């Protein structure tokens, strides 16, 4: 069920570069790895949005409370050259390649995530699993990742 894809970014890559990568790959988030391919974090479009909007905004239900949208643009410009290590989710929530599918489903639901990095016993990235992969797996009666 998992996707055997190890596309990843590094901790020192800039926010602007990561936005470009997410956009080109048409994905909402991507694992962050070190030089040995160990997963050290996960950066999503949500992490970047959270970093760019005022902190109180996340508590609100409507964007109409934002006094000035220029603030969002200004904040994005301010962080665009910063390393993603400052904004990524860490430690990352991951699933082991030998875990059952239900573990991935549990983590995705409990943490409200769209994608989980799948790692081997040495914490190295071996792929990803998305919500849709879990749904497809359940539908097809699969029990393994």
């Amino acid at each position: 069920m998992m996707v055997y894809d190890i596309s990843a970014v590094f901790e020192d890559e800039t926010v602007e570069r990561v936005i470009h990568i997410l956009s080109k790959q048409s994905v909402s988030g991507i694992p962050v790895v070190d030089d040995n391919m160990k997963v050290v974090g996960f950066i999503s479009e949500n992490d970047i949005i959270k970093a760019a909007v005022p902190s109180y905004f996340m508590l609100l239900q409507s964007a109409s409370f934002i006094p000035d949208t220029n603030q969002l643009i200004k904040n994005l410009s301010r962080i665009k050259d910063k390393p993603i290590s400052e904004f990524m989710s860490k430690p990352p929530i991951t699933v082991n390649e030998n875990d059952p599918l239900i573990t991935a489903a549990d983590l995705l639901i409990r943490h409200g995530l769209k994608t989980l990095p799948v790692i081997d016993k040495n914490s190295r990235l071996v792929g990803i699993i998305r919500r849709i992969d879990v749904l497809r797996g359940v539908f097809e009666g699969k029990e393994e990742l």
Partner: protein
Amino acid sequence: MEVLTVTLNPALDREIYIDNFEINKLHRLRSLERTRMSPGGKGINVSIALAKLGIPSIAMGILGGYVGRVVLEELRKIDKRITTNFVHIDGETRENIAIIDEVNDTITEINGPGPVVSKEDVDHFLRRYRMSLSRANCVVISGSIPIGVDEGIYAQLSGMAKERNVCVFMEATNALLTKAIKQNCPDVVKPDLRGEQVVLDQKLEEFEDYVEAAEEIINYGAKLAVLSYKIKNDIVATKEGVWLISMTVPLEESHLLGSGDAYVAGMVYHALRKKWDLLEMAKFGFSAAVAVTRRKSKEMPSIEDIEAERNSFTVERVK
């Protein structure tokens, strides 16, 4: 993971079967079976062939646009032994078209140039490549490069792999290969001679030219050099000598698609799963290439199919 394959200029391959193909004429395909679409590019083809032989690999390279997404999705469907790790760019991945005429035994190929790749994307690829080398014993670097990528890149990739004691197999045309051979010679070198017969900037005409070129590649540090000679034969050189492998069974030239990639995959398979015996690796590669020509499409052969071709050729020492 043992094998890393590099395809800097992947393609969406389209095979179209047209009997009595003629230029300047309308051809209508009678059924969908007369056309086939698959992910391609030499490194990707090697990954697909290795998966069929039970060997997992990481397929790396550069993809872009709508065609790039189709290539990636199709590749993921083939086998879970193939892990993908592509850099995605703004440009559009190319399409390669092969028109196969089985009546006249011809194959007409039109290969696109590929997208323009920025330095930033090349640097991103190189960083991912360095990281992926930490998981490989062997890297296969093959095929063309897209516009904007320096011709010295294969030399650079070979050097990075060798620094980490990762074995390098390379199949490429003269310009890319010459720089790599002279700067960081790969372990196994297979010049791509489909277009022009030029190796180390020297035009090959006579049999002796091929033998000398193979020996020169060995002198630069390669352990094995394999040069295709008049389609049905190969010149194989190692430090120990030079051999001529000659096919003894009829060849369907319209079925040659993918045979070079199966050859490389066969050599890698033999090195990893059987023995690092250079002449035997070349023989196994040759068997794999012959096995591919037994079928219409570029579909990769099984181990049994490859083993069955061991008597389809002779091996003669020439030096």
